[in-house]
Protein backbone atom coordinates (compact mmCIF):
# COMPACT_ATOMS: atom_id res chain seq x y z
CA UNK A 1 0.00 0.00 0.00
CA UNK A 2 1.30 3.44 -0.92
CA UNK A 3 0.04 6.72 0.47
CA UNK A 4 0.80 10.12 -1.01
CA UNK A 5 1.57 12.77 1.61
CA UNK A 6 3.34 15.81 0.07
CA UNK A 7 4.14 16.87 3.61
CA UNK A 8 6.80 19.48 4.28
CA UNK A 9 9.90 18.19 6.06
CA UNK A 10 11.36 20.49 8.73
CA UNK A 11 7.82 21.80 9.14
CA UNK A 12 8.52 22.44 12.82
CA UNK A 13 11.31 24.84 11.87
CA UNK A 14 9.06 26.44 9.30
CA UNK A 15 6.22 26.93 11.81
CA UNK A 16 8.59 28.61 14.26
CA UNK A 17 10.07 30.72 11.44
CA UNK A 18 6.58 31.94 10.53
CA UNK A 19 5.95 32.80 14.19
CA UNK A 20 9.19 34.78 14.32
CA UNK A 21 8.31 36.55 11.07
CA UNK A 22 4.93 37.55 12.51
CA UNK A 23 6.63 38.74 15.71
CA UNK A 24 9.01 40.99 13.74
CA UNK A 25 6.15 42.36 11.62
CA UNK A 26 3.93 43.04 14.66
CA UNK A 27 6.72 44.86 16.50
CA UNK A 28 8.16 46.70 13.48
CA UNK A 29 11.53 45.13 14.09
CA UNK A 30 13.90 44.55 11.17
CA UNK A 31 15.67 41.21 11.48
CA UNK A 32 18.86 40.23 9.66
CA UNK A 33 20.31 36.69 9.64
CA UNK A 34 24.10 36.91 9.27
CA UNK A 35 25.86 33.86 7.78
CA UNK A 36 29.54 33.21 7.01
CA UNK A 37 32.52 30.93 7.57
CA UNK A 38 34.19 31.06 10.99
CA UNK A 39 36.62 33.97 11.17
CA UNK A 40 35.15 36.17 8.44
CA UNK A 41 34.56 38.99 10.92
CA UNK A 42 30.83 38.72 11.63
CA UNK A 43 31.18 39.66 15.28
CA UNK A 44 33.59 42.52 14.54
CA UNK A 45 31.22 43.91 11.88
CA UNK A 46 28.27 43.67 14.26
CA UNK A 47 30.17 45.19 17.21
CA UNK A 48 31.22 48.13 15.05
CA UNK A 49 27.73 48.49 13.59
CA UNK A 50 26.26 48.57 17.11
CA UNK A 51 28.82 51.13 18.26
CA UNK A 52 28.26 53.42 15.27
CA UNK A 53 24.46 53.21 15.13
CA UNK A 54 23.43 52.85 18.77
CA UNK A 55 22.54 56.51 19.19
CA UNK A 56 20.18 56.33 16.24
CA UNK A 57 18.74 52.80 16.37
CA UNK A 58 17.95 50.30 19.11
CA UNK A 59 19.83 47.13 18.20
CA UNK A 60 19.95 43.66 19.73
CA UNK A 61 21.97 40.62 18.73
CA UNK A 62 21.21 36.90 18.99
CA UNK A 63 24.56 35.10 18.98
CA UNK A 64 24.82 31.50 17.83
CA UNK A 65 27.92 29.48 18.62
CA UNK A 66 28.70 25.88 19.35
CA UNK A 67 30.23 26.89 22.69
CA UNK A 68 31.08 29.92 24.84
CA UNK A 69 29.47 33.35 25.22
CA UNK A 70 32.59 35.18 23.95
CA UNK A 71 30.68 36.85 21.10
CA UNK A 72 27.73 37.98 23.23
CA UNK A 73 30.19 39.64 25.63
CA UNK A 74 31.82 41.53 22.74
CA UNK A 75 28.43 42.79 21.55
CA UNK A 76 27.40 43.87 25.07
CA UNK A 77 30.62 45.81 25.50
CA UNK A 78 29.85 47.57 22.19
CA UNK A 79 26.58 48.73 23.73
CA UNK A 80 23.75 46.43 22.62
CA UNK A 81 21.62 43.76 24.23
CA UNK A 82 22.91 40.32 23.32
CA UNK A 83 21.87 36.79 24.11
CA UNK A 84 24.04 33.78 23.45
CA UNK A 85 22.65 30.50 22.12
CA UNK A 86 25.08 27.65 22.61
CA UNK A 87 24.16 24.96 20.09
CA UNK A 88 26.45 22.42 21.80
CA UNK A 89 27.61 20.82 18.59
CA UNK A 90 24.87 21.67 16.12
CA UNK A 91 26.14 23.46 13.02
CA UNK A 92 23.30 25.98 12.56
CA UNK A 93 20.62 27.89 14.46
CA UNK A 94 17.00 26.76 14.27
CA UNK A 95 13.97 29.06 14.28
CA UNK A 96 12.85 27.60 17.61
CA UNK A 97 16.12 28.60 19.30
CA UNK A 98 15.69 32.13 17.98
CA UNK A 99 12.10 32.32 19.29
CA UNK A 100 13.40 31.57 22.76
CA UNK A 101 16.10 34.24 22.52
CA UNK A 102 13.88 37.10 21.32
CA UNK A 103 12.30 37.62 24.74
CA UNK A 104 15.68 37.65 26.43
CA UNK A 105 16.92 40.67 24.42
CA UNK A 106 13.59 42.48 24.55
CA UNK A 107 13.29 42.27 20.77
CA UNK A 108 9.79 43.79 20.76
CA UNK A 109 11.29 47.18 21.67
CA UNK A 110 14.17 47.05 19.18
CA UNK A 111 14.54 48.55 15.71
CA UNK A 112 17.00 45.94 14.45
CA UNK A 113 17.73 42.38 15.55
CA UNK A 114 20.82 40.70 14.13
CA UNK A 115 21.06 36.94 14.33
CA UNK A 116 24.70 35.92 14.09
CA UNK A 117 24.51 32.33 12.89
CA UNK A 118 27.02 29.58 13.63
CA UNK A 119 30.13 30.01 11.44
CA UNK A 120 29.42 27.63 8.53
CA UNK A 121 28.74 28.23 4.83
CA UNK A 122 26.63 25.10 4.34
CA UNK A 123 23.96 24.18 6.89
CA UNK A 124 22.63 27.56 8.14
CA UNK A 125 21.36 28.42 4.67
CA UNK A 126 18.77 25.60 4.83
CA UNK A 127 17.08 26.98 7.96
CA UNK A 128 14.73 29.93 7.70
CA UNK A 129 14.77 31.77 11.04
CA UNK A 130 11.96 34.17 10.14
CA UNK A 131 14.38 36.96 9.21
CA UNK A 132 13.49 39.69 6.70
CA UNK A 133 16.95 39.81 5.17
CA UNK A 134 19.90 37.50 4.92
CA UNK A 135 23.45 38.82 4.88
CA UNK A 136 26.48 36.74 3.95
CA UNK A 137 29.95 37.89 4.97
CA UNK A 138 32.94 36.81 2.86
CA UNK A 139 36.40 37.99 3.87
CA UNK A 140 39.34 38.36 1.52
CA UNK A 141 41.70 35.79 3.13
CA UNK A 142 39.07 33.04 2.65
CA UNK A 143 39.63 33.17 -1.10
CA UNK A 144 37.57 34.20 -4.11
CA UNK A 145 36.32 30.66 -4.86
CA UNK A 146 33.79 30.53 -2.00
CA UNK A 147 30.70 31.53 -4.03
CA UNK A 148 31.59 28.79 -6.55
CA UNK A 149 32.07 26.20 -3.82
CA UNK A 150 29.07 27.15 -1.67
CA UNK A 151 26.52 28.49 -4.17
CA UNK A 152 23.41 27.67 -2.12
CA UNK A 153 24.35 30.11 0.62
CA UNK A 154 25.10 32.97 -1.77
CA UNK A 155 22.03 32.31 -3.95
CA UNK A 156 19.76 32.93 -0.94
CA UNK A 157 21.47 36.10 0.33
CA UNK A 158 20.05 39.62 0.07
CA UNK A 159 23.32 41.31 1.02
CA UNK A 160 26.96 40.35 0.58
CA UNK A 161 29.52 42.08 2.79
CA UNK A 162 33.02 41.60 1.41
CA UNK A 163 35.08 42.16 4.55
CA UNK A 164 38.77 42.80 5.36
CA UNK A 165 39.16 45.15 2.39
CA UNK A 166 42.17 46.60 4.25
CA UNK A 167 44.01 43.43 3.10
CA UNK A 168 43.22 43.88 -0.59
CA UNK A 169 46.85 44.58 -1.51
CA UNK A 170 48.18 41.61 0.44
CA UNK A 171 46.03 38.68 -0.69
CA UNK A 172 45.16 37.17 -4.06
CA UNK A 173 41.46 37.84 -4.25
CA UNK A 174 39.78 38.62 -7.56
CA UNK A 175 36.97 41.00 -6.55
CA UNK A 176 35.44 41.10 -10.03
CA UNK A 177 35.32 37.31 -10.17
CA UNK A 178 33.42 37.17 -6.88
CA UNK A 179 31.03 39.99 -7.70
CA UNK A 180 30.21 38.64 -11.17
CA UNK A 181 29.70 35.11 -9.93
CA UNK A 182 27.51 36.15 -6.99
CA UNK A 183 25.38 38.29 -9.30
CA UNK A 184 24.76 35.30 -11.56
CA UNK A 185 23.53 33.37 -8.50
CA UNK A 186 21.45 36.29 -7.17
CA UNK A 187 21.06 39.14 -9.69
CA UNK A 188 19.57 41.69 -7.25
CA UNK A 189 21.99 41.14 -4.34
CA UNK A 190 23.37 44.23 -2.56
CA UNK A 191 27.16 44.11 -2.31
CA UNK A 192 29.20 46.27 0.09
CA UNK A 193 33.00 46.21 0.26
CA UNK A 194 34.00 46.95 3.84
CA UNK A 195 36.69 46.73 6.45
CA UNK A 196 35.35 46.29 9.97
CA UNK A 197 38.84 47.08 11.19
CA UNK A 198 39.34 50.47 9.53
CA UNK A 199 35.67 51.34 9.00
CA UNK A 200 36.16 51.64 5.22
CA UNK A 201 32.91 51.20 3.28
CA UNK A 202 30.73 50.68 6.33
CA UNK A 203 28.67 53.83 5.75
CA UNK A 204 26.93 52.26 2.72
CA UNK A 205 25.99 49.24 4.87
CA UNK A 206 24.70 51.57 7.60
CA UNK A 207 22.66 53.52 5.05
CA UNK A 208 21.09 50.31 3.77
CA UNK A 209 20.27 49.15 7.32
CA UNK A 210 18.89 52.52 8.39
CA UNK A 211 16.70 52.73 5.30
CA UNK A 212 15.32 49.24 5.98
CA UNK A 213 14.70 49.99 9.66
CA UNK A 214 13.09 53.34 8.86
CA UNK A 215 10.81 51.73 6.28
CA UNK A 216 9.12 50.03 9.22
CA UNK A 217 6.49 51.99 11.11
CA UNK A 218 7.91 54.06 13.98
CA UNK A 219 7.53 52.53 17.39
CA UNK A 220 5.36 54.06 20.10
CA UNK A 221 7.82 55.33 22.64
Amino acid sequence: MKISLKKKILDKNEECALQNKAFFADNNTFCVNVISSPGSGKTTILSRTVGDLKDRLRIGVVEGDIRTDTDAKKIRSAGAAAVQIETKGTCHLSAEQVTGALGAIGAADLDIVFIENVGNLVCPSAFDLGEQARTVVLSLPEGDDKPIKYPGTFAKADVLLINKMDLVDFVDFDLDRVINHVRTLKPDIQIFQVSAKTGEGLQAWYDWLTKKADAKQPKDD
Partner: protein
Amino acid sequence: MHETMIAQSIVEAISKAAAKYDAKPIAARISCGQLNPINDEVLNFAFEIVAQDSVCQGAKLQIVHIPLKGKCKNCGDAFDFDIYSPGCPACKSNEFSIEPDAPLLLEEIEFEDK
Protein backbone atom coordinates in the same frame (compact mmCIF):
# COMPACT_ATOMS: atom_id res chain seq x y z
CA MET B 1 25.09 17.71 9.78
CA HIS B 2 21.61 19.14 9.39
CA GLU B 3 20.76 15.87 7.64
CA THR B 4 20.22 14.39 11.12
CA MET B 5 17.51 16.95 11.86
CA ILE B 6 15.91 16.23 8.49
CA ALA B 7 16.08 12.47 9.19
CA GLN B 8 14.38 13.02 12.56
CA SER B 9 11.63 15.05 10.91
CA ILE B 10 11.08 12.28 8.30
CA VAL B 11 11.03 9.49 10.91
CA GLU B 12 8.50 11.43 13.02
CA ALA B 13 6.22 11.98 10.03
CA ILE B 14 6.41 8.35 8.84
CA SER B 15 5.83 7.05 12.39
CA LYS B 16 2.72 9.22 12.70
CA ALA B 17 1.35 7.90 9.39
CA ALA B 18 2.24 4.31 10.36
CA ALA B 19 0.22 4.65 13.56
CA LYS B 20 -2.70 6.13 11.63
CA TYR B 21 -2.78 3.31 9.04
CA ASP B 22 -1.62 0.67 11.53
CA ALA B 23 0.92 -0.63 9.00
CA LYS B 24 4.66 -1.20 8.76
CA PRO B 25 6.47 1.30 6.50
CA ILE B 26 8.95 -0.29 4.08
CA ALA B 27 9.90 2.69 1.89
CA ALA B 28 9.49 6.45 1.61
CA ARG B 29 10.18 8.96 -1.14
CA ILE B 30 11.26 12.51 -0.43
CA SER B 31 12.02 15.34 -2.83
CA CYS B 32 14.21 18.39 -2.48
CA GLY B 33 15.29 21.42 -4.50
CA GLN B 34 18.76 22.63 -5.37
CA LEU B 35 19.37 25.32 -2.76
CA ASN B 36 18.94 23.13 0.32
CA PRO B 37 22.17 21.21 0.35
CA ILE B 38 21.27 17.58 1.03
CA ASN B 39 23.84 14.85 0.69
CA ASP B 40 22.10 11.57 -0.17
CA GLU B 41 24.71 9.39 1.46
CA VAL B 42 24.67 11.37 4.72
CA LEU B 43 20.87 11.55 4.84
CA ASN B 44 20.51 7.81 4.21
CA PHE B 45 23.01 7.12 6.96
CA ALA B 46 21.29 9.51 9.38
CA PHE B 47 17.89 8.02 8.52
CA GLU B 48 19.14 4.50 9.19
CA ILE B 49 20.46 5.55 12.62
CA VAL B 50 17.45 7.64 13.64
CA ALA B 51 15.04 4.92 12.43
CA GLN B 52 16.60 2.30 14.70
CA ASP B 53 14.17 0.98 17.31
CA SER B 54 11.28 2.80 15.65
CA VAL B 55 8.60 1.52 13.30
CA CYS B 56 10.76 2.94 10.46
CA GLN B 57 13.66 0.58 11.13
CA GLY B 58 14.75 -1.05 7.86
CA ALA B 59 12.65 1.23 5.66
CA LYS B 60 14.33 2.46 2.47
CA LEU B 61 14.57 6.14 1.65
CA GLN B 62 14.44 7.39 -1.92
CA ILE B 63 15.66 10.96 -2.49
CA VAL B 64 14.56 12.83 -5.63
CA HIS B 65 16.37 16.05 -6.57
CA ILE B 66 14.10 18.46 -8.42
CA PRO B 67 15.84 20.83 -10.85
CA LEU B 68 15.70 24.58 -10.37
CA LYS B 69 14.18 26.16 -13.48
CA GLY B 70 15.89 29.14 -15.04
CA LYS B 71 14.85 31.30 -17.99
CA CYS B 72 17.35 33.29 -20.00
CA LYS B 73 16.52 37.00 -20.43
CA ASN B 74 18.76 37.18 -23.49
CA CYS B 75 17.74 34.22 -25.70
CA GLY B 76 14.58 33.08 -23.88
CA ASP B 77 15.91 29.56 -23.34
CA ALA B 78 14.33 27.68 -20.40
CA PHE B 79 16.88 25.50 -18.66
CA ASP B 80 17.70 23.56 -15.50
CA PHE B 81 19.78 25.95 -13.43
CA ASP B 82 23.06 24.44 -12.31
CA ILE B 83 24.23 26.31 -9.20
CA TYR B 84 27.74 25.01 -9.72
CA SER B 85 27.85 26.49 -13.21
CA PRO B 86 25.31 29.33 -13.32
CA GLY B 87 24.48 30.85 -16.68
CA CYS B 88 22.37 30.12 -19.73
CA PRO B 89 23.62 26.86 -21.30
CA ALA B 90 22.48 28.01 -24.76
CA CYS B 91 23.93 31.53 -25.11
CA LYS B 92 26.12 31.70 -21.93
CA SER B 93 24.35 34.90 -20.81
CA ASN B 94 24.37 35.71 -17.10
CA GLU B 95 21.06 37.56 -17.33
CA PHE B 96 18.32 35.16 -16.29
CA SER B 97 15.49 34.65 -13.83
CA ILE B 98 15.10 31.70 -11.50
CA GLU B 99 11.83 30.12 -10.41
CA PRO B 100 11.30 29.34 -6.71
CA ASP B 101 13.24 26.34 -5.49
CA ALA B 102 11.30 23.14 -4.72
CA PRO B 103 10.61 22.63 -1.01
CA LEU B 104 11.76 19.66 1.01
CA LEU B 105 8.80 17.25 0.87
CA LEU B 106 7.88 13.83 2.13
CA GLU B 107 6.11 12.69 -1.02
CA GLU B 108 5.01 9.12 -0.45
CA ILE B 109 5.19 6.25 2.02
CA GLU B 110 4.92 2.59 1.06
CA PHE B 111 3.59 0.17 3.67
CA GLU B 112 3.87 -3.60 3.91
CA ASP B 113 0.79 -5.39 2.57
CA LYS B 114 -1.26 -6.85 5.35
